[in-house]
């Protein structure tokens, strides 16, 4: 049985093709002005990679902030539900899933079946999401993908106002003028983010099996800061940015199976 999960995020659309309970392929496209078109592209890319056609798919499930605009969708899955499903599928012991995307961060508590039981969301403020790291990389004139490595070189963090992207930007500009070390500024950026995320995790109750997913989970600087703040080592899947799409594809599979019965 073939199912497809689509995650329509603010920055990218990700698609996962699931064949008999295993990931067959993945695809993604930039959301830009037209998330519907981006989703079509991501799905096309994923199906092509698996040698499949649209008509082979039993169920399409959509998640992500623009899920209402998804093409082909037979149903939608909440973002928290998708995170929980994917987290437990990837790491069966996981009970807390942290998802940090471009404009939103979530911490989800779930049971052994991958069903969400509680969650905390940061959705109104960019200081707790990937947008913060992007803005700071721009202010530091460092490539986004290099910021993490830079932060790992620092022993301490510079003092910056990290409660707000806009204030943070101004602070970074003045720190650069005072010729403060860029690695220390970079570390401050990740520490501040990690502070926010770890307080979200703590609100759900401490749990040693924490999984980190979402686009920001690819950033070594953020991982290092989050591990330090949480005092544990988070588990990270090989494709953290596809977790939402995977969760949707898994839900799609159980819905399709339910419909067959």
């Amino acid at each position, binding site marked *: 049985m073939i199912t497809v999960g689509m995650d329509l995020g603010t920055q990218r659309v990700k698609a996962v093709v699931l064949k008999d309970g295993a990931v067959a392929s993945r695809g993604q496209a930039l959301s830009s002005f037209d998330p519907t078109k981006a989703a079509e592209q991501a799905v096309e890319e994923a199906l092509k990679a698996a040698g499949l056609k649209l008509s082979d798919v039993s169920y399409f499930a959509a998640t992500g902030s623009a899920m209402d605009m998804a093409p082909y969708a037979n149903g939608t899955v909440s973002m928290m539900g998708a995170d929980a499903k994917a987290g437990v599928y990837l790491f069966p012991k996981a009970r807390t899933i942290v998802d940090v995307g471009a404009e939103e961060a979530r911490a989800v508590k779930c049971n052994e079946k991958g069903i969400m039981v509680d969650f905390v969301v940061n*959705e109104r403020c960019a200081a707790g999401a990937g947008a913060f790291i992007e803005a700071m990389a721009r202010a530091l004139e460092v490539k986004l993908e290099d910021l993490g490595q830079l932060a790992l070189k620092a022993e301490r963090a510079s003092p910056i106002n990290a409660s707000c*992207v806009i204030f943070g930007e101004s602070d970074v500009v003045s720190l650069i003028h005072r010729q403060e070390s860029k690695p220390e500024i970079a570390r401050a950026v990740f520490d501040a983010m990690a502070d926010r995320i770890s307080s979200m995790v703590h609100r759900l109750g401490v749990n040693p099996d924490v999984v980190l997913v979402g686009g920001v989970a690819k950033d070594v600087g953020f991982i290092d800061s989050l591990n330090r703040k949480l005092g544990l080592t988070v588990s990270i899947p090989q494709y953290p940015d596809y977790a939402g799409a995977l969760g949707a594809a898994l839900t799609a599979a159980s819905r399709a199976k339910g419909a067959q019965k």
Partner: protein
Amino acid sequence: MTEAGTVKGQEFWRWQEYHRIMPKKWTNKDLITAGVDVGSVGSKAAIMVNGEAYSWGITRTGSNSPESATKALSYALEGTGLKASDIKYIVGTGYGRVNVPMANKAITEIACHAKGANYIWGPTVRTVLDVGGQDIKAIRIDETGRVTSFLMNDKCAAGTGRGMEVFADLLQIPIEDIGGISLKVEKEPEPVSCTCVAFAKTEAMGLLRKGWTKEKVLAAYTRAMAVRMANLINRVGLEKELVVTGGQSKNIGIVSRIEVILGVKCLPMPNWRDEGSLDPMVAGALGAALFAKALYEKAQKA
């Protein structure tokens, strides 16, 4: 008014840089003081002759605060016949006040805006709302322009002028027209739920995708900004008369909505475009120049 500010057609967010000289003369016997207000977005410098506003310049703040301060001050001096050495005392203020190299002293922008508002509107002002590029301050003052209490947004830039720049750029509307356009709606829409500056673009794009007009999008965002400002004023305690200073004082969409929400009228805004008129965006620099005069006179007596 000398229009030295360059008009850059494609940059809709760019507000007008300008300088003005008031129609009066100075002599060598006069006391010349200056205030330099380096804000997060705009740098303003004002020159006073015996404690009266004489000239000022408004420029965009660059990434280097000392350079921006120097630029604003030279702009204020341009065409006056005055030299920097004629200025007896300079007070630096604003976000970058510690980086004003020529300043004899730095004073917080809260005190300076209070003083400046008292200078522009007179002793009846009791509440000053200062809205700049990335901050909002609600300030209570007494009849002499002294601060009695204040509140500011120290954790979050949501609802500040920077968001308006993002909208101007995205909607391709000159920033100075935004306020007026935001009022061209038949019915005021619900305010947007999120005024985070970093999300302004996504927020606006989402509404445009839903088929909202530019006017409606601006109305919803401006309304949300005004609600935040009104809340801050209510928290500090509103006492009449109310005035608005800073760059957003020029945004009629903001000012009129605050009046509606609070149910009070602000004191009339000087028409800053007119020759010989004061500009509430320079309130901080004017206040700083007044402090400079007082500090200089105190030093002479000592």
